[in-house]
């Protein structure tokens, strides 16, 4: 066996770029009231459709311009980040807890437990996810908690399938058999021997899922099914920007860039974390 490469433990540009953007966006969201240059809800029709700062006609203090109601775009993006992150974290963690637990049980115990859980997953995944989300929100009613709940209800299957496959592979390893011979209980083996070996995958999926949750939330708010229309959301801003694309392209473009960067960062960050969590790859 060759030496574990210690160099990769240091600066992985992928990890730092992705992590940096996420940290920046997260801090901005947390301290939104302190950072945002304007009130995100304040309308001023005298200031409608101001361009971003480097174009003619820009006003100081409105860095990324304003929308058709004269609301500051940057402030709206920062406040929209709050909702995006709340949804990303709670929905992904909820989906992860449910999906990983069931996946671990199905993969490790096999037999009937596996058959039942896998069939449920198959049925679940037969529904188109976005349609399912819209349906769920329509039933649960709009609002932050129903959006979170809807995403968790839809996406736990993603964790379940991957973790089931991983746990199944690990359970066939000799070290699991060795633990059986030593006299450990089944649940003890599942938690102490198998679980640590699937944690890297759980971490990677969790980060990926946060990105997906951001997209789903944006889709729901784009079709006006997320939370109350007053609160700025990235999807909501995109929907407004689409209407005024010919007069004020920036209202569409900046939230899109923010959304893409965030989702991309989540998935890259997850991959990089997986490499660091895995003792063999590390």
């Amino acid at each position, binding site marked *: *066996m060759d*030496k*574990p490469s210690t160099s990769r433990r240091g600066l992985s540009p992928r990890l730092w770029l992705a992590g940096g953007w996420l940290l920046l966006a997260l801090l901005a969201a947390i301290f939104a009231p302190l950072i945002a240059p304007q009130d995100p809800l304040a309308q001023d029709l005298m200031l409608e459709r101001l361009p971003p700062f480097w174009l003619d006609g820009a006003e100081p203090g409105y860095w990324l311009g304003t929308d058709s109601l004269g609301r500051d775009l940057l402030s709206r993006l920062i406040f929209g980040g709050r909702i995006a992150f709340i949804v990303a974290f709670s929905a992904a963690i909820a989906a992860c807890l449910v999906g990983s637990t069931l996946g671990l049980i199905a993969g490790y115990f096999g*037999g009937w437990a596996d058959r039942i859980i896998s069939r449920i997953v198959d049925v679940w995944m037969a529904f188109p996810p976005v349609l399912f989300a819209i349906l769920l929100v329509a039933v649960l009613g709009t609002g932050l908690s129903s959006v979170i709940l809807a995403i968790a209800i839809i996406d736990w299957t993603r964790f379940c399938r991957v973790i089931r496959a991983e746990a199944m592979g690990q359970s066939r*390893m*000799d*070290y699991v*058999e*060795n633990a*059986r*011979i*030593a*006299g*450990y209980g089944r649940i003890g083996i599942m938690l102490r*021997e198998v679980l*640590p*070996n699937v*944690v890297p995958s759980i971490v990677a999926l969790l980060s990926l899922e946060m990105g997906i949750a951001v997209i789903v939330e944006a889709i729901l708010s784009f079709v006006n099914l997320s939370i109350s229309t007053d609160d700025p959301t990235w999807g909501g801003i995109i929907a407004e920007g689409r209407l005024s694309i010919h007069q004020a392209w920036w209202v569409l473009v900046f939230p899109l860039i923010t959304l893409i960067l965030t989702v991309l960062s989540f998935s890259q960050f997850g991959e990089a974390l997986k490499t660091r969590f*895995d*003792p*063999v790859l590390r």
Partner: protein
Amino acid sequence: MSTCLDITNLSAVLPNGERVLRSVSLSVLPGEVRALVGESGAGKTMIGKAVLGVLPSSVRIVEGDMLLEGEDLGKLQPKARRTLIGARTALIPQDPLTALNPSRRIGPQMTDRLVRILGWTVEKADQRVRQLLDEVQIRDPDRVLRSYPHELSGGMRQRVLIAAAFAAEPRLIVADEPTTALDVTVQKQILRLIAALQREHGTAILFVTHDLGVVAKISQKVSVLYAGKVVEEAETATLFAAPQHPYTRALMAATPRYTDPFASLKPVDEAVLAGLAAEITAADKAWRRPHG
């Protein structure tokens, strides 16, 4: 003197009714090394797994008794059986790559068992593990205990597994082809280590192998298996001096000789295999009659 392991008439079947173990009987005395030889698929490993209680779920034991130090494993409750097997037996596995948990450091993996199953204190377990690592000639126990399995070579990992197997002072160790996955040069060292530790600790070993050379070196008694049936059993010296069964003779003839590297490899004679097949069919018929 009571036997360490006593298997009588053990039969196990697959879901399709085919017997994978055919009325196997064998015993291991305390401190004795019993070799199980046979070609792949002969059921050597299956016997080891049956003793350790880790048969695949598709294989079902339909007949026979297994006594571990006089305790009938078949009559114990599952939990009591697990505890007994955990306390009195250990496994030296075939593949040192997958037999250690890749995400845990060696130290906790080795001590955990002593602490959790045998109820030792952490200090005592740690001391014991270090002593065993010394016995398997690992010179830098601190580094090894801190390592993850992938940071050690195959030979090192097998040493760790041998140390782990002996650490809990089991009465019986099942060694499942412990040298097969290793380099030829390392094989010899590992074999010597197992033999030395076995002598020192007086542990009985059920040594599964397909290598007659290994059998001659390490064991006192041999059972030759074919298709899940013991075709011959004898003291090792007797077996090598005067093999009785034609299959045993054929196996010995098929062993490559290093003294004549240009001699072509001989397969087991067709006539011998035909004889074996007839023997097994007859045995199955005789077995089915009383069992319907």
